[in-house]
Each structure stands twice: as structure tokens, then as C-alpha cells.
């Protein structure tokens, strides 16, 4: 055990049992998985991505590239969790990744010996030929050998929540700068939302032994928290990771609600996705310590110096017994002092700057560099002094203090690239989007005093843009440090195993732009987005080429800043909650009568009604269609869009919306109407009924109900705002039921004894508004089936009563409920187009409806519909199709070929758009579009479906298969 005897922000009174690779270990409340593993002297946590090198814990937070573990098991297994940011809880299970059988002995480590083929660009080079083997052989092989953890493949069993927040000021990060900004803004009366990724506020104050206002940093942070919590205008979200900055001051974050609690939390979401809108945002996101490039810098036992400081001070664990620090900045000396204070033997501080920072009482400060490291996990380092000497020092812990990179990635989410700052020797965000600023270390203010002042200055600027608070300057640092390698791999991107040699190779091969470098070497493309090592990698390129860092530049960070579970983004929108469900007014009645339902947009529509004796769904549909042709059927058509149009100019509006004339429609009549898009193609079709001089109700297809309403609004508000007309969707207000078949009149006359429904007083295309049982009622004599038919509408809440009354009265007439499949059969027998026939690429001429295009008026789409290519007789136009062998079954989507032509795309002359089994003809029939179609009636062609492997001879025929004269519907 290397738990220090005292200190730390852990609760030694609350031990926690957890399992790592099957071993039961214990830690304390307040530990992370990483600190608890260090307490148990676990040095090797996993294996690296490409070379399967043994890797230990490198950092103390979200930028961890090495210590990635899979948490949990079964469906809850979550791969690639960063051990330093996993809170310990009772029963936590963690497993090493990328190793078999164990992280200490990994058979795949042979990849390290094959490292010559895994160099930069290996994807492009090694496996270029033959291409066919790539998918089957190379890629699966590489994925198995090199790769990250695995998903369970099971559905996510957890639930996720979603919240919205609106605030005057969003503060991201609760270190000294974030806390001082939040305090200052809250005292100024702003609504403040403070977001902290950690389980407690304080940031680096939790890792250091600094004092603020005379008290320990942690105590100051606790006092600040207390003041903020007491302020009702302040909201604090801990365990919450901001992951994206978006347009218009919107931000996205994920709160880990119960990830840190033992067992699956009952009644609580696992995580909560926050969508935040903030008038101003201060990013006090701190800085990430950068590694130093030297041989063997990935060996377990080599850590970031700042991480060592965190483990010693916050978690009271010593990651080693004898330590050295390799530094290019003064913070390295602080860590050495903290190590010494904790009782760890400090062997040396190796300062790579030519003028070392200071001397130490407890250890030698060496001016020089580390060139190599030794041991499976670290046992010794080789130091080359600038005065010429080389010495080997036995240590089991080495801290890298390579300077600090401000965490500015969120700025580039909005497209703002950072600038290289020469005195800071790091990228700093100069160009900012409106409402976003950086403070503290994230702005280059690296000392505690500056960070506190910087947070306050940022808050002051939020409250008063003209604030005279002087800007806080940036600190000075040494440049990113690269040691010339001797024989050992030098890593810059630990998670993706990218070495200095890879970068030099990419440069030799011409991949010099950082964007090319990134893709060729995969530098910064791992799940950590290169937070730790990417800038160091770019420094390698700059130093090698002898150019300034400013000329090399850096890569834009992109959302998500840290990986986000897809479940958190989906929230509650999964399974049956993915989309809202719309039920028709007769849904319950249909369900009671054996209906199977199908999704039509958001609607559930009855597809067929199963009755005893029906062999299958087709038998049901054919039986229902036959009932309509021979007796009477009822079908809910409420899903059709219904729009009421009213006003003195309503007729004029409809003339402009429809291709055919509507102003001539008499009151009490309906007319079929065709709408075009402005580009001349068919948009939608439906019926128009004139209820009185200035009042119409129009119907749309189910799928276009919303689009037609939008279109009507566009015409009224944008194109012709001077028209005195109004339109309103009433789709949900009316239940509408089709009553179709030879007995429909008799049935409706029983229902409506006070209205004369004889053919003379209420002929085909009649419309009447009246009452049924004292309830408003509209009756239209419309026919989609080709039979004598009506559609009756009542207010939606009476739809159920209406359908039940119709079914009861209809018993005498053999009334049969019918669904969408029967509806399809009936309309295809009549050659009525719908659904797949209207695919947005057909013209009125294509559908044989060219005569409907009025020449007496302007209407939407008229000018473009007259373009020569849109009226070319060679276009694919609507035809009927029937198999020459009546036993054969047609399938929609089949392509149409001239008899004897090759069945290749270039020879296709059209396709089958709708098919149905016709009970009237006892065979499959179809509608389709065919080049020169109307001139080819009687020709035998081939319908081929390469998808289904079918080729069927079909005869081209008139699309109106049944009652072409239309006698039945006028009966």
C-alpha cells in the first residue's frame, strides 16, 4: 500500500470495495479509480492502441490517454473510461482493455515488434493491395489486434434525462478563476450557471497546497461554494461535462446523475443532457500540462508532474517511492517539494532549460535532459547533463513538467482558431465569438494570483463591457521540449501511439500541413482528441522544419470535447417514444375489430381487419375490397389533411394554388384538385368542397398534410399577402369516414333520415353541411374506390360514436370495415394515383392529368410545367400493368424493360410504382410509369427486380382496370 498516513480530500472512515480485473480491492470515499489503483501499487493499467505497450496512469483527469478501462459488465459495460475521472463507488467493476490474457502479460505485444509496419500512414501503405482483402482480412485483423474497448452489443438498459437551462452567465470550470468569476457575477446580481466536471469544486486548488486570502485553497473553495449555493440566482452543476459550444450562445453538457452511485440507480436517470443558452460564457477551463518528448516517455511510472501533485495532495497516495522530475518550468519544482513533504524520496529535478529555475534543499537540480528510461514499469532514467556527464538514476516515478497549454478547444467549436503566443509559448485564444471569453489558466494566466484576478476581470467585463479592469497578462513559459531520441520510441500521442519518428516520416513524405499530419499519423484523432500531446506533436514538426509554431498552427477541436454516450443524446426519445403517435378517432373501435395497424407518418392506420377464416393479411384485404365492390365498407380517412379556406378572395387563392379552376365550383359541390410545386411537378392532390360562397374545405394526402398547410401559408403570407383570405388546418378537428359500395346510400339514408340522398338531389361530387343526431356533420359524395361512395365528417370526439353507429346500422347491408390494404386494391383497380406513384418527379402529363392544367389563369407551377422537357411525350407516363401469366406476382419497384433488352440500368424504361392483388380480376395488377407509356397499350414488356431476382412478362394496359366508364360511382 502506498496510501500516505494522513491528509488528502478522502474520507478514511468510508472504505469502498471495488474490483479491478476480477481482484477485489478497497479505496476510500473521495477516491477515483486511478487513485485507488495507485494506492494498491497497480502500475500497469492497460495496453496501448497499436503496439500494445504496457501503460500506466499518466494524468489526473479527462485528458487521460493511457489508463482506459471498461466499466461494468453485460449490457452496462462501458469501454474507454478514463480511470482518473472515474469516481470510486461500492461494487465498481473495471477491466483493462487491449490485452489478453492480462495487462502484465499481453500476447498482442508482438505488435511492438512489428512496429515497422505500423508507422505513419500504415493504413494507406501496407494494405493497398489487393483491395478486396481489405474488408475481409486486414481491417478485422487490425481491429482485433489494435483497437479500443468493445461494446456489449446489447440495448442500453439505462434511462437518460434532458433539461434546458437559460442563464445570464455560464461559467465553465470551478478552479480559482471560475470561482472568482462566479462570485463576482453573482454578487453583481446575475443569474449564474456554474458547471464543473469534477465531483467537487476547486479545480487545481484541490491538488495544490496554496493559500488564498490566508486560508488553504480548498477551504477558500468551500467557502466560495457555500456563498454561491446560498444565492438563489446561482445554479451549480457538478459532475457535469460541457461537451460542445454551438451557434447563438447555445451549449451542450452531460450531467452524470447516478454513474457514481452503487448499483443501477432506481428511479433516476443515469445521465442528463443539458441544453444551455447563456447570454455570456466564461470558460475557466484551466490548462493541460504537456508532456516532454524523450525516449521511453510512455513507460508506466512516468506521469505528468501535475498529476503526481494531485495524487499526493488530493488523494494522499504516492505513485512511487523514489521520484525524479523532468521539468521546463517552475511548477516542476513545486511538485518536487510536495513529493518531499509527503515523504517520498526525491532523487533529482532535471531542468531542461539552459538556466535552471532554482536550487532545492532536498534534492539535486540537474541542468540537462532525460534521454532514456528503463524497466517494464519504470526502474531508472538516463540523464545527460548539459555539462557533458551521463548518469543513470534509479527511480520508480518520473514527473514530466513540460509547460501548460490553455484549454481553449471550445473556441474552435465555433470556428475560431487560436493564435500562438510567443511569451506564453502556447496557443491562446485571441479571436472570440460574441458572448464567449476565457479566464484564468485557460487565458494564459497561469499563476494563482493572476487566475483569481482574471476570473474577476472577466466577470466585471460581463457586467459592464466598458469595465476598466486591466486585462491580465499571460505568463511566460519555455517552449515545448523535444529530446533527441536514442534508440527508444518517443511518444507524443499516447492514446494513438504516435511517435516523434512518425511525425518526421510524415514530414519526409510531404504531409506537412498539420491537417495532413493529423490524418496521416492519426495524431490527435483518438477519443482524447490529443488533449495531452497534440501541441507537442506540432512542436516536433516546427522544430524539425526550423519554422515558428505560429507558422505550423494547430488543429481545430470539435465537439464533443469529451466522449458522450449516444443514450444521453437520445434521452427519452427511444423505442416507442422516438416519435409521437397519432391515433385516429376510430382507433379503439378498429382494434376491437381485429385491426392490424401500420405507421402512416405519425399516424397508426388500420391496415386490415382480421376475421375468422382469413388465411393471411392478403385474404383479409381481398375480402374487404370485395365487400366494398359488392355491398358496403367503412374506412377511417381522418388522416387526410383538411384545411379550411375562408374569405372574399378564397376562390382566387384556390385558383392560384390548384392547377385546375376552383372559382367556378358551385356551392354544395366538390372537385378533384391537383397542386403543383412552383417547379412544375406534381406536389399533392385532394378534393376541394365549396361550403358557401367564401368558404371551402380542402383535403390533402396524409403525408403532405403539413407541407400543404405550409405551402398555403407561404402563398397567403409571402406571395400574395394582399389576398383577403385565411386558411387553417382542421385535420384534427374532424373525424372522416369513407362509406363506399353499392349499399352506401341505403346505409347513410338510415343514418341521416332527414337528408334526401337520392342521386337527383345529392349527385356524385355533392357536398352538404348538416347535422347528425344534433352534431355538426359534413357529407361529401366522393369516391376513391370507384363505387357509389361518400365521406362523412363529424367533430373528432364523435368519430367513435359515428363509426359504431354505421357498423350497427350496416349489419343489414353487409357492412365491412376495410383498411389501407383494401383501399390500395380499390384505388389501383381504378388507376387512382397515390403514395409511391407521386414521388415528386412526375408531372400532370405523366399521370394522364395534363388536361387539368388550366390555360385561363396563373397558378403555382404553371410556367415551369410548360417547359418542353416536362411535356415531352417520351417521358415516363402512367400505365397499367398485368402479368401475361396471371398466376405471377408483381412487385413494386421492379424496373420495366423492352422485351429482349438487357436488364441494366441504362435500358430501364420505367418502373412499377404500386401493386395490388385484385379480387375482381383474380390476379396481380400494377401501376407504373413507362416511357411513351400511353402509346404502348397492349405491348408485352418485362418487369425485372434484381433485388428479388424476378423477371416477369407484363402487358401494358389502361391504368383504369375497372369500370373505365365510371358508371358505378355515379349510380
Amino acid at each position: 500500500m502506498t496510501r500516505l498516513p494522513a491528509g488528502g480530500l478522502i474520507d478514511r472512515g468510508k472504505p469502498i470495495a471495488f474490483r479491478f480485473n476480477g481482484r477485489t480491492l478497497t479505496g476510500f470515499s473521495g477516491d477515483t479509480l486511478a487513485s485507488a489503483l495507485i494506492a494498491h501499487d497497480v502500475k500497469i493499467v492497460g495496453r496501448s492502441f497499436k503496439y500494445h505497450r504496457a501503460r500506466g496512469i499518466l494524468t489526473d483527469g479527462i485528458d487521460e490517454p493511457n489508463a482506459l478501462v471498461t466499466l461494468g459488465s453485460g449490457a452496462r459495460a462501458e469501454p474507454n473510461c478514463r480511470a482518473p475521472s472515474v469516481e470510486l463507488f461500492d461494487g465498481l467493476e473495471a477491466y483493462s482493455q487491449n490485452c489478453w490474457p492480462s495487462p502484465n502479460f499481453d500476447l498482442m505485444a508482438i505488435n511492438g515488434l512489428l512496429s515497422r509496419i505500423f508507422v505513419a500512414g500504415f493504413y494507406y501503405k501496407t494494405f493497398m493491395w489487393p483491395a478486396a482483402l481489405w474488408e475481409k482480412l486486414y481491417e478485422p485483423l487490425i481491429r482485433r489486434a489494435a483497437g479500443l474497448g468493445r461494446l456489449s452489443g446489447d440495448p442500453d438498459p439505462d434511462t437518460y434525462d434532458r433539461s434546458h437551462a437559460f442563464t445570464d452567465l455560464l461559467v465553465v470550470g470551478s478552479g480559482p478563476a471560475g470561482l472568482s468569476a462566479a462570485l463576482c457575477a453573482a454578487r453583481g446580481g446575475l443569474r449564474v450557471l456554474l458547471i464543473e466536471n469534477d465531483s467537487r469544486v476547486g479545480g487545481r486548488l484541490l491538488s495544490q497546497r496554496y493559500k488564498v486570502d490566508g486560508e488553504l485553497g480548498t477551504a477558500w473553495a468551500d467557502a466560495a461554494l457555500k456563498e454561491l449555493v446560498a444565492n438563489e440566482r446561482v445554479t451549480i452543476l457538478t459532475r457535469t461535462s460541457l461537451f460542445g459550444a454551438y451557434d447563438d450562445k447555445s451549449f451542450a453538457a452531460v450531467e452524470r446523475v447516478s454513474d457514481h452511485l452503487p448499483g443501477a440507480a432506481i428511479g433516476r436517470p443515469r445521465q442528463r443532457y443539458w441544453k444551455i443558452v447563456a447570454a455570456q460564457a466564461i470558460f475557466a477551463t484551466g490548462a493541460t500540462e504537456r508532456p516532454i518528448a524523450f525516449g521511453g516517455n510512455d513507460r508506466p511510472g512516468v506521469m505528468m508532474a501535475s498529476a503526481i501533485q494531485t495524487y499526493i495532495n488530493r488523494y494522499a497516495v504516492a505513485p512511487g517511492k523514489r521520484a525524479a522530475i523532468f521539468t521546463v518550468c517552475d511548477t516542476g519544482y513545486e511538485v518536487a517539494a510536495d513529493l518531499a513533504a509527503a515523504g517520498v524520496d526525491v532523487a533529482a529535478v532535471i531542468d531542461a532549460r539552459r538556466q535552471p529555475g532554482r536550487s532545492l534543499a532536498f534534492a539535486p537540480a540537474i541542468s540537462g535532459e532525460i534521454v532514456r528510461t528503463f524497466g517494464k514499469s519504470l526502474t531508472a532514467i538516463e540523464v545527460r547533463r548539459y555539462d557533458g556527464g551521463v548518469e543513470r538514476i534509479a527511480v520508480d516515478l518520473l514527473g514530466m513538467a513540460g509547460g501548460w497549454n490553455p484549454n481553449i478547444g471550445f473556441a474552435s467549436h465555433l470556428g475560431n482558431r487560436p493564435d500562438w503566443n510567443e511569451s506564453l509559448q502556447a496557443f491562446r485564444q485571441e479571436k472570440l465569438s460574441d458572448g464567449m471569453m476565457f479566464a484564468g489558466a485557460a487565458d494564459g494566466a497561469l499563476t494563482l494570483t493572476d487566475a483569481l484576478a482574471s476570473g474577476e476581470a472577466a466577470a466585471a467585463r460581463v457586467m459592464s463591457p466598458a469595465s476598466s479592469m486591466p486585462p491580465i497578462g499571460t505568463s511566460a513559459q519555455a517552449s515545448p521540449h523535444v529530446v533527441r531520441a536514442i534508440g527508444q520510441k518517443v511518444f507524443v500521442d499516447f492514446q494513438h501511439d504516435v511517435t516523434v519518428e512518425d511525425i518526421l516520416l510524415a514530414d519526409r513524405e510531404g504531409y506537412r500541413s498539420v491537417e495532413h499530419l493529423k490524418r496521416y499519423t492519426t495524431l490527435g484523432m483518438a477519443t482524447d482528441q490529443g488533449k495531452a500531446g497534440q501541441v507537442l506533436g506540432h512542436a516536433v514538426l516546427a522544430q524539425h522544419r526550423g519554422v515558428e509554431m505560429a507558422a505550423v498552427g494547430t488543429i481545430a477541436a470539435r465537439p464533443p470535447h469529451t466522449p458522450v454516450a449516444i443514450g444521453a443524446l437520445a434521452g427519452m426519445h427511444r423505442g416507442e417514444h422516438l416519435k409521437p403517435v397519432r391515433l385516429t378517432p376510430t382507433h379503439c373501435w378498429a382494434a376491437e375489430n381485429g385491426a392490424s395497424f401500420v405507421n402512416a407518418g405519425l399516424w397508426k392506420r388500420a391496415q386490415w381487419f382480421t376475421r375468422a377464416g382469413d388465411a393471411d393479411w392478403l385474404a383479409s384485404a381481398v375480402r374487404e375490397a370485395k365487400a366494398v365492390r359488392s355491398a358496403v365498407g367503412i374506412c377511417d380517412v381522418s388522416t387526410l389533411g383538411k384545411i379550411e379556406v375562408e374569405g372574399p378572395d378564397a376562390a382566387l387563392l384556390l385558383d392560384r394554388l390548384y392547377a385546375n379552376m376552383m372559382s367556378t365550383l358551385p356551392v354544395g359541390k366538390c372537385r378533384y384538385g391537383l397542386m403543383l410545386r412552383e417547379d412544375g411537378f406534381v406536389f399533392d392532390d385532394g378534393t376541394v368542397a365549396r361550403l358557401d360562397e367564401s368558404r371551402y374545405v380542402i383535403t390533402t394526402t396524409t403525408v403532405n398534410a403539413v407541407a400543404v398547410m405550409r405551402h398555403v401559408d407561404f402563398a397567403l403570407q409571402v406571395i400574395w399577402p394582399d389576398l383577403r383570405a385565411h386558411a387553417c388546418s382542421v385535420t384534427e378537428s374532424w373525424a372522416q369516414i369513407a362509406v363506399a359500395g353499392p349499399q352506401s346510400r341505403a346505409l347513410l339514408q338510415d343514418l341521416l333520415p332527414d337528408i334526401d340522398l337520392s342521386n337527383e338531389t345529392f349527385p356524385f361530387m355533392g357536398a352538404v353541411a348538416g347535422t347528425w343526431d344534433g352534431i355538426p356533420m359534413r357529407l361529401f359524395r366522393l369516391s376513391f374506390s370507384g363505387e357509389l361512395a361518400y365521406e362523412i365528417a363529424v367533430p373528432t370526439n364523435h368519430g367513435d360514436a359515428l363509426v359504431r353507429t354505421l357498423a350497427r346500422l350496416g349489419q343489414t347491408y353487409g357492412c365491412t370495415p376495410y383498411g389501407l390494404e383494401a383501399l390500395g386494391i380499390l384505388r389501383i383497380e381504378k388507376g387512382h394515383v397515390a403514395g409511391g406513384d407521386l414521388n415528386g418527379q412526375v408531372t400532370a402529363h405523366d399521370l394522364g392529368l395534363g388536361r387539368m392544367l388550366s390555360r385561363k389563369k396563373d397558378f403555382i407551377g404553371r410556367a415551369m410545367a410548360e417547359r418542353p422537357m416536362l411535356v415531352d411525350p417520351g417521358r415516363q407516363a402512367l400505365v397499367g400493368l398485368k402479368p401475361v401469366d396471371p398466376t405471377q406476382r408483381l412487385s413494386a419497384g421492379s424496373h420495366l424493360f423492352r422485351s429482349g433488352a438487357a436488364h441494366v440500368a441504362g435500358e430501364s424504361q420505367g418502373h412499377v410504382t404500386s401493386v395490388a392483388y385484385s379480387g375482381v380480376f383474380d390476379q396481380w395488377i400494377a401501376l407504373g410509369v413507362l416511357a411513351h407509356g400511353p402509346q404502348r397499350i397492349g405491348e408485352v414488356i418485362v418487369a425485372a427486380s434484381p433485388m428479388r431476382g424476378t423477371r416477369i412478362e407484363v402487358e401494358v394496359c389502361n391504368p383504369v382496370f375497372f369500370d373505365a366508364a365510371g358508371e358505378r360511382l355515379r349510380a
Partner: protein
Amino acid sequence: MIISCPHCGPRDSSEFYFRGEATPTRPEYDAGTAAATGYVYGRINPAGPQKEHWYHAAACRSWLLVERDTRTHKFLSVTLASEQGR
């Protein structure tokens, strides 16, 4: 993105339907095919401020004439399309 609807106030862009670049005045049929072609297909596609039509589909059903900078997604102005030129 947040769009300030003149009727409903600042609302999330997910409530709106985006039609595209606002086209000039629709030509009458008599203006001919060339004018109609320009109206239907002609777009400036600027890198910078662009006039657009948005529809507040999930609320007041107003068509809005919006000026948005295509480089920054900044909304420069939002007015009711029906009041254009009045």
C-alpha cells in the same frame, strides 16, 4: 440557434422550418419561362448576409423574412414576411 419571432419572441430554431434563400418577387405567368426559371432556381448563395424564409411551424405559423450571416449564423433581422414592403 435562437430566432426572435415577431409574434412569439426568442425561440429555438428547432421550432422553425427553413425554406431557403428568400427569392425575389414571384413573376406572373405572363413574364415568361426565363423569369420563372430565375425565380425557382436562381440563388445568390452569398458568403455573408443572406435573406431567408423561415416558417414558425411549431407555433404561430408565420412566414418570416430573416437576414442571417451565412458565415457566422448570426441573425441580423427578423420580420414578418407578410409585412414586407408595407
